[in-house]
């Protein structure tokens, strides 16, 4: 009996001390008199993960009264988790958001802090960004987010593999692109172009660009709006068929690969072509193989009615919660994240383009990145990521449908019907 009592007492003591030791860092911070700021971002992978760790450490060193509690999950998971957090009363103090409809959905929760006052008071901060990139975070004249990165999506190619296949000219039209893919195929590249179609967002990037290139802007504007969208234009079917044509070049494995796996293949010099974000050039730059690559904007459809000069891509930035217990500390951290000094470091460490004026220079970047900035500045405009441009129900029907088309589980006609059904639901909800 005595042994039992001793054993139970020891066990209880261990449990209690363990519970005390693992008490939330918020409690620990509170106990040490520090203010805790919760920061949630979507880059748990290198080099961005290390960058944010360093930034947080630097901020804490400069602000000994503040403790930053950082958490991160990657892309698709982030989209879901931030929605879960926003719907709860557990909104992080500072968090990442895409622009356009994604940002607007978060704003609709009423839990995102408006930034007009802050920007009004701190003109130097407000004027340190490319003005046009704040627009996608502004709704009804109220700004809710500030961009850190700017981006665009381009078709990249391995120059050595193109030369080996005798390809010398970048395609201007979709048909010319198909000719290039056929050439690569006949020269021994069974998979001349590839995408990780298991990632729904990667599909949406293709879809968004192809729809924008093919359909008249007025049709897209009407259909992308929740209250008027019907997606009955025959062009949607044409675009899906052309996407299917492109997928046929990707071989049987595309639907089970991720975008990262495909990018690794490109970097390893095994893949002639892929659709890549400008921000991803950094991975090539940081690789041991450093394949020599070229890139071009997605070509036009010869029968398309959209502006082929647009570049698909949108800024990504930070927002603040308006339910924060420590709004002043959150603002301090928010401004620190977006300062020119840190944006400069971001470009140097991560190698991605930023919206902070003067943060990209010859000293902290590499030629391909400088070219990318030139490209962004010279295109006729930008088109948002498709999954941020339309209601998520419609985007889901497009993305899942295209995945099913790629794995040959659905026909294009079935997918078009699904999209129209989703649009009908969205429209009825928006007009009720």
């Amino acid at each position: 009996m005595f042994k039992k009592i001793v054993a139970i007492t020891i066990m209880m003591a261990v449990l209690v001390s363990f519970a005390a030791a693992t008490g939330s860092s918020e409690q620990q911070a509170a106990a040490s008199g520090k203010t805790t700021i919760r920061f949630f971002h979507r880059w748990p992978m290198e080099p961005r993960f290390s960058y944010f760790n360093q930034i947080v450490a630097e901020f804490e060193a400069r602000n000994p009264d503040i403790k930053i509690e950082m958490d991160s999950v990657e892309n698709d998971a982030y989209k879901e988790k931030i929605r879960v957090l926003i719907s709860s009363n557990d909104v992080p103090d500072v968090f990442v958001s895409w622009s356009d409809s994604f940002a607007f959905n978060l704003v609709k929760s009423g839990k995102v802090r408006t930034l007009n006052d802050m920007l009004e008071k701190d003109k130097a901060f407000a004027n340190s960004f490319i003005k046009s990139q704040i627009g996608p975070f502004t709704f009804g004249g109220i700004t809710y987010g500030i961009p850190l990165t700017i981006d665009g999506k381009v078709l990249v190619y391995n120059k050595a593999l193109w030369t080996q296949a005798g390809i010398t000219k970048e395609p201007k039209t979709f048909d010319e692109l198909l000719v290039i893919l056929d050439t690569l195929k006949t020269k021994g590249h069974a998979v001349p172009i590839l995408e990780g179609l298991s990632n729904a967002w990667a599909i949406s990037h293709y879809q968004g660009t192809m729809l924008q290139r093919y359909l008249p802007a007025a049709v897209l504007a009407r259909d992308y709006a929740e209250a008027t969208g019907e997606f009955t234009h025959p062009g949607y079917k044409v675009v899906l068929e052309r996407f299917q044509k492109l997928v046929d070049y990707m071989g049987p494995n595309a639907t089970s690969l991720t975008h990262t796996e495909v990018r690794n293949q490109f970097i390893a010099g095994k893949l002639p072509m892929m659709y890549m974000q400008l921000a991803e050039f950094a991975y090539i730059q940081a690789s041991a193989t450093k394949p020599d690559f070229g890139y071009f904007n997605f070509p036009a459809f010869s029968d398309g009615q959209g502006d082929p000069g647009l570049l698909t891509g949108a800024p990504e930035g930070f927002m603040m919660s308006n339910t924060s217990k420590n709004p002043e500390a959150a603002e301090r951290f928010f401004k620190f994240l977006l300062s020119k000094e840190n944006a400069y470091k971001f470009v140097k460490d991560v190698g991605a383009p930023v919206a902070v004026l003067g943060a990209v220079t010859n000293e902290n970047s590499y030629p391909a990145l400088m070219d990318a900035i030139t490209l962004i500045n010279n295109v006729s405009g930008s088109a948002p990521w498709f999954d941020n441009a339309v209601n998520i129900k419609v985007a889901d029907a497009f993305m899942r449908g295209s995945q099913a088309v790629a794995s040959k589980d659905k026909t294009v006609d079935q997918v078009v019907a699904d999209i129209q059904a989703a649009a009908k639901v969205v429209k009825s909800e928006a007009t009720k």
Partner: protein
Amino acid sequence: MKLRQLKAVAQPLGFILPCMIMLGLFVYYPLVQNFIFSSFRFSAFSPEKIFIGFENYKTLFTDEIVVTALRNNIRYAVVSVLIQVCFGLVLAAILEDRVFRRFAPLFRTTFFLPVVISVSVVCLLFGFVYNPIDGLLNKFLELIGLGSLARPWLGSGKTAIWATIAVSQWHSTGYIMMLFIVAIQKIPEELYEAAEIDGAGKLRQFFVITLPQVKEMFFVSSVITVTGSFMVFNEPYILTKGGGPGTSSITIGVHMYQSGFFKDMMGYASTLAVVIFLISAFFAVIQMTAFKSGED
């Protein structure tokens, strides 16, 4: 006297009350709340809720994904009962046999090991196994001359759900096997000795002694497995990125989560949660009736 009577009533109530409060707060209240939510349309982003009556239930009957999801859940349940429960029992019976007793601890640990690994880790691991280019499975098939069978296991609508189900079997069979081992160890040794004297072989001993004696455990593990099959979430969510390609490997749990937190249809997600509840309750009642649990 009266005080003693009062005490006799109050004492058991005092023991039950904390449990009742916890159950009420964390099980029954959310359950009722979920039923109420299923008659509303609302967004995770907005506090505004619109009452729509049975509209969500009507949608349920026209939603093709529900059919796919339920079909996948049924596949999950059938395979899980066959592999985890039936095969788990066979494994347990073999390991508890006198002939194997010497090696039993080694095999017991080996089969149980996957259970202690987190499902997320297991799924990431099998993501590598199923990788169509460098994956262990396709490479192995090529190695033994069965390269024609190699395929994108998680990337094809025909194989994705089966590949996902297989991972669950690898992960959970050891657990059910362990439950059966405990049950078999409780069977009096004399029964087997008597049967042996009567000339019963191993197979006959299994059917006339082991099987009837572990009936209760068979029931419990069947309930665990079947209800677990209708709540499966992690495997398709991680392995096939939420039930892909398309919706081919989606389960009702994943559909519920995505409806709520991806498509922002919280009311409809609640309706799907009601479906999961009703199905689980239905199977529990059927199994309880069929096995007449508690009579032994």
